[in-house]
């Protein structure tokens, strides 16, 4: 091995020996969920507005579209929501569901369309986001 090759090798091994502890720390932080955030801490950063209710006569299902605004600086995905079916102010039914593929970017608005059971005498549908997932978990 000549001097030039040896210098290159030493330089490479120097980079590796510097990066390895940093990567190990990052990996440990990742495994312990350090980079994950809890939706509960960001609940007040979201707003929800009803856009449309599609109640087809022959269908057993009502399709409702909401506009969701994410005022947080994080991207979110995998929504767990609850829809309250109301007759005036009385809550007559609640339904929970999950849409794994739903996503909303930081500072953005996006639509959320949900399907609920059609019930008699319902005058309003209120949607509450129960949980969202935010994760920048690295996969190796």
């Amino acid at each position, binding site marked *: 091995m000549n001097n030039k090759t040896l210098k290159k090798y030493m330089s490479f091994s120097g980079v590796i020996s510097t990066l390895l502890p940093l990567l190990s720390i990052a990996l440990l932080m990742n495994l312990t969920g350090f980079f994950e955030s809890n939706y*509960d801490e960001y*609940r007040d950063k979201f707003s929800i507005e009803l856009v449309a209710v599609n109640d087809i006569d022959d269908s057993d299902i009502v399709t409702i579209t909401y506009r969701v605004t994410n005022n947080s600086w994080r991207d979110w995905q995998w929504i*767990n929501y609850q829809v309250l079916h109301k007759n005036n102010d*009385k809550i*007559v*039914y*609640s339904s929970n569901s999950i849409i794994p593929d739903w996503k909303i970017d930081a500072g953005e608005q996006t639509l959320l369309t949900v399907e609920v059971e059609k019930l008699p005498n319902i005058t309003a549908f209120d949607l509450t986001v*129960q*949980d969202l997932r935010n994760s920048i978990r690295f996969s190796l």
Partner: protein
Amino acid sequence: MNVVELSENEYAVVFSIKNNSNKKWHDLTYQLIGSNNIDEVILTQEGDDSIWLIQPNSHAFLTIKMNRKPLNASWKLLIRNLESS
């Protein structure tokens, strides 16, 4: 708690549940107990809900469907188990 008639022979009880803890609770297992007006138990119904969850220091609603008309009954929800995270 509200009891509602959804359709013929289909009823539901809606409970409001408050979480006063600092933990998120999910994976609910419960027992619904219906009693008549002299406190005799006339119906019990077991159930679970893996989608339902409640954030810390918040409230959520839980709807349980029944195939029996709840005449002269009072209802109690026993939470058998919850997972926390």
